[in-house]
């Protein structure tokens, strides 16, 4: 009870000091709320702007050999913002498409085979390396296909053939997913990765500040001379870093969920009207647990690495490789069709990402969730044990040790532990 009270006092001091540091507030609170919603808004606005620009432009298309009796096709093309350019040298036209002075070339040629009188072949030339040419190709293709369907219908009707006879079969697409399910699917694709990144960002600055930052400010020895146990100090520091990570992850989840609808809907136009972006209530506790487990693990490892640093910059350099490494499984998990298997539940970080992804979609594999929590807690316990072990070495405590975690482990493993002889509590 007394040690809980002590940890509480130390924790309050850590949190108060951290919340007064601008870089921590920005990185652990402001950025998780604002960054990704803003980035997505900027990205989708950019896409919408480019799309608007492209749609407003005329497509410059050279049409060669338009057969007589098909003048309606030319009218349809012009109605779709296609500017018809009088035919000239087709070899030069190819160069024009490549160079950007022309967007597409449409060449009609009659079919020579018996029974094909009145029909023709169309060759459409464009370049996929230019957006405007791609847009021209898309417009011409849509007009040609629609024109062909209409023409076929007229021909069939004139020949007395019913539509069902000549079409053979038609494909009808039906999406059984509700708007809510579609929203959950889209959120599940993006949220877990952002959640992981933001949880790590949330831990990053507080972890360096609580360890290397204290050394840089010469307050490390002040803390070590307090009338409390080393374990209490480590626990309070750890809890404060994990709190910032959890807070950053959850704030990001909330901000993304609240803003996603407004940001994405205009891009999905018509079809998105029904899409509902929201988190299932049943998933919230699972997500909260996921945030705690993930932040707990990241905080422990980051503090472990940073406790060897003597300056803030050194601390950042020691943590960054772990930060980047952690992103790898999360990026791989963006693949579609991946299932939350028992094996995957055993992989730290990846398991929490999968757990959050499924919780967003309202899917709960309880055995895997239990394994994920157990693995997370085990990793936290191992990291903290290692941290307490490392803090037994007084050269680490007083900041005179010049190596990293791996160097220390190698040295102590070999048994040269003069610095450790005075292990302190």
């Amino acid at each position: 009870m007394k040690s809980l009270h002590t940890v509480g006092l130390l924790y309050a001091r850590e949190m108060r000091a951290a919340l007064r540091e601008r870089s921590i507030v920005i990185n652990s609170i402001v950025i998780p709320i604002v960054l990704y919603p803003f980035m997505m808004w900027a990205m989708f606005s950019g896409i919408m702007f480019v799309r608007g620009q492209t749609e407003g432009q005329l497509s410059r298309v050279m049409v060669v050999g338009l057969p007589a009796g098909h003048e309606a096709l030319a009218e349809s093309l012009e109605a779709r913002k296609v500017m018809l350019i009088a035919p000239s040298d087709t070899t030069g036209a190819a160069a024009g498409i490549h160079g950007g002075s022309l967007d597409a070339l449409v060449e009609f040629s009659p079919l020579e085979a018996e029974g094909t009188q009145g029909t023709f072949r169309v060759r459409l030339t464009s370049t996929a390396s230019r957006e405007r040419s791609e847009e021209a190709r898309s417009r011409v293709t849509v007009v040609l296909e629609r024109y062909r369907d209409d023409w076929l219908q007229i021909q069939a009707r004139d020949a007395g053939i019913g539509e069902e006879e000549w079409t053979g079969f038609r494909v009808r697409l039906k999406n059984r997913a509700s708007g809510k399910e579609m929203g959950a699917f889209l959120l599940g694709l993006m949220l877990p990765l952002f959640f992981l990144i933001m949880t790590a960002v949330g831990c990053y600055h507080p972890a360096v500040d609580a360890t290397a930052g204290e050394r840089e400010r010469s307050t490390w020895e002040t803390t070590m001379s307090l009338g409390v146990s080393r374990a209490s100090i480590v626990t309070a520091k750890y809890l404060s870093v994990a709190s910032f990570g959890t807070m950053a992850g959850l704030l990001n989840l909330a901000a993304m969920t609240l803003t996603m609808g407004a940001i994405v809907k205009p891009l999905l136009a018509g079809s998105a009207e029904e899409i509902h972006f929201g988190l299932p209530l049943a998933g919230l506790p699972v997500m909260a647990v996921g945030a705690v487990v993930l932040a707990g693990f990241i905080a422990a490892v980051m503090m472990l690495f940073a406790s060897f640093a003597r300056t803030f910059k050194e601390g950042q350099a020691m943590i960054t490789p772990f930060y980047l490494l952690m992103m790898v499984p999360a990026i791989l998990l963006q693949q579609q069709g991946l299932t939350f298997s028992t094996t995957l539940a055993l992989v730290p970080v990846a398991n929490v990402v999968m757990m959050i992804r499924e919780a967003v979609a309202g899917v709960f594999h309880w055995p895997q969730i239990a394994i994920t929590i157990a693995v997370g807690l085990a990793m936290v316990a191992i990291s903290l044990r290692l941290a307490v072990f490392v803090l037994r070495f007084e050269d680490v405590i007083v900041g005179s040790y010049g190596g990293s975690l791996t160097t220390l482990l190698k040295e102590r493993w070999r048994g040269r532990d003069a610095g450790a002889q005075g292990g302190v509590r």
Partner: protein
Amino acid sequence: MSEITVEARGLTKMFYDESRGEVRAVDGIDFQCRSGEIFGLLGANGAGKTTTLRMLATILKPTSGSATVMGREVGEEPEQVRRSLGFYSSSTALYPRLTARETIEFFARVNGYAPDEVPGRVRELVARFGIEEYADARVEKLSQGMKQKVSIARTVAHDPPVLIFDEPTVGLDVLNALDMQRVIGEFRTQGKTIIFSTHIMSEAERLCDRIAIIHGGALLACDTLEGLRTATGKRYLEDIFVYFATDREDGT
């Protein structure tokens, strides 16, 4: 006779250094300090003063030998030892983002001062050290002199019976250094044990009831200033220090 509050018995500390191998930073030191006494550790830079004080403050653990503070072994009850002393040094800076008032309150609470009495204690120290005007300003905004006052206040916030000052006047201007000496003198009159390390002879002469001369990790002499004068036949502490240090280097 006042009670013995701090005792070191054969206190030794060895370090491993990449270039020098095993280094004996403190070599079998013995001394006792009493309540109401300023005990000075006088030595050049690197003599072993800070290492000795860090062992007493349980930041470092002795390689061999032992020490007690208020009857508690530093190796066995480190938390209780730390609670019974106030440790002040140039490497124990203040938390820059706390205010002066929050700093004093935090140190009082965390070091075990009776929770109900903490607000009164904070008010008392704020008034005593004249920090009312900037008590609610963050420490990072304070001048060196203001920080020094807050540092002393936080050192004594839990009213410990033993105070350790490791080169407390390093980096201070003359007026602030004199002010620090005055405050340390006041603590003596309150009956506290003060262990005071310095390499400035005049400070030791002016403040200390007994002086221990430490050189190369070893305690060469420990007595009152008068006792040291009698033993060496020298009047000034500078000469007394040279006398012992030269003897040590000559191996006599």
